């Protein structure tokens, strides 16, 4: 167990023992390699298999909306999770006073798909050490620099440090390469329209409509999603081009000004579909036009909720 894990565990234990929180949300040891499991500790006895490492790929803010507002929630937050929580507070999904955020400066999440692409899908064991990762399969052993395996969202992370956590454990880390996000949007935007549409079609047509992207996203907490509507039906029910493209366009659009680019949607997808190339575009648009970056505080309304008469000179017809 690493030093960081030990400290986090001790803090979780303290919060639970002193009854400062009703539940502590963290991770526990995986059953199958690569996927530590989100865990919900209500008692410090349960902390035995507590784990925290770079393979913890889920955005824990997802689970915030599952509890009634009165529940006192303690949770581990990385930079992106902290911003998600902030934005959920803006959207009144949980009161700030009932959340205790234990911040962890994040060195980035390893993308399990990058690992399986390099080592095959049959992975028997993974060992993590600072900056290095060793992956074992039944026949081989692979070593990687942690940089190679970072998820794209983490490789371009602008905010790896928690910004409004109640307590931060660990030394702050340098932002990764935020310019990369803009470069990516520019590079994609620089392609011809035909190429961009081909790319989008290629990505969206693999969709099996399992909605793992939706369920992994902390911002997707609607009681009923637009695709689940029976009457009126907003989109085709089949895995047809029309149905899948609508899903990918509208899912992304519903995140406008609400996405923190944590990449949880991509990491949840079983079909390796890339999605953040769309949401990053929306994020850059919101930043350029409205100087809005989601989740930097827990007060500012997102652009679609904060329109004013000042807009009248915008969008001159």
């Amino acid at each position, binding site marked *: 167990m690493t030093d960081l894990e030990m400290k986090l565990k001790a803090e979780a234990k303290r919060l639970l023992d002193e009854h400062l929180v009703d539940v502590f949300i963290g991770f526990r040891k995986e059953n199958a390699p690569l996927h530590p499991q989100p865990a919900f500790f209500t008692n410090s006895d349960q902390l035995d298999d507590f784990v925290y490492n770079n393979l913890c790929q889920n955005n824990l803010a997802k689970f915030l909306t599952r509890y009634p507002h009165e529940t006192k929630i303690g949770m581990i937050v990385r930079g992106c999770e902290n911003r998600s929580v902030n934005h959920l507070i803006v959207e009144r999904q949980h009161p700030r006073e009932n959340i205790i955020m234990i911040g962890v400066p994040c060195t980035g999440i390893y993308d399990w798909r990058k690992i399986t692409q390099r080592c095959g899908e049959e992975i028997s064991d993974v060992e993590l050490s600072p900056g290095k990762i060793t992956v074992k399969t039944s026949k081989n052993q692979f070593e990687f620099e942690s940089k190679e395996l970072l998820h794209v969202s983490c490789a371009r992370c602008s905010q790896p440090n928690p910004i409004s956590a109640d307590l931060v454990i660990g030394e702050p880390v340098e932002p990764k390469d935020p310019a990369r996000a803009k470069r990516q949007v520019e590079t994609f935007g620089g392609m011809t329209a035909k190429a961009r549409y081909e790319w989008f079609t290629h990505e969206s047509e693999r969709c099996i409509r399992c909605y793992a992207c939706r369920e992994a996203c902390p911002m997707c907490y609607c009681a009923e999603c637009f695709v689940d509507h029976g009457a009126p039906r907003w989109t085709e029910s089949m895995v047809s081009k029309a149905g899948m493209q609508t899903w990918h366009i509208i899912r992304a659009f519903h995140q406008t000004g609400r996405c923190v680019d944590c990449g949880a949607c991509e990491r949840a997808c079983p079909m390796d579909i890339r999605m953040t190339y769309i949401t990053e575009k929306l994020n850059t648009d919101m930043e350029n036009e409205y100087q809005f970056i989601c989740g930097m505080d827990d007060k500012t309304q997102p652009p679609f909720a904060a329109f004013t*008469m000042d807009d009248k000179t915008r969008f001159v017809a």
Partner: protein
Amino acid sequence: MSANQPNIVLFQCQWCLYAKTDQDWVENSLPENMHLVKTSCTGRINPLFVLNAIQGGAEGVMISGCKPEICHFKEGNIGARRQLSAFQKLLTHIGFDRSRIRFVWMDLQDTGRIQKELATFEKDLVDLGQSAVLVTRKPGFEGGMHD
């Protein structure tokens, strides 16, 4: 639809045409290739409507609403403008031609403008030619590996 008569869907805020003659014209005398969807305000236009129109084979979508200060519901159109323009940019990002979505913000003295706007739009769409992007529900069934 012939190449000279592209399908156009007009989303119209029911308050934006101040002259009765204009409103009568869009309701009764639109050419066959143009389809009217009358809404209570541009704020009612869900971007899904626009996408649905395009997927169903519209070559162009025109959104006609009131100028900012004169919204019947005070600020419905202000919210709509933020949303719809962001949606237009998103579609452009994935390869759609942004000029196929056109906004017209009407003022009180704009009698007769809607006819002109639609005529220009139609002409521009003819110049652009048929769209191959996002037209995915028409004709028939096409799709990915699952079909």
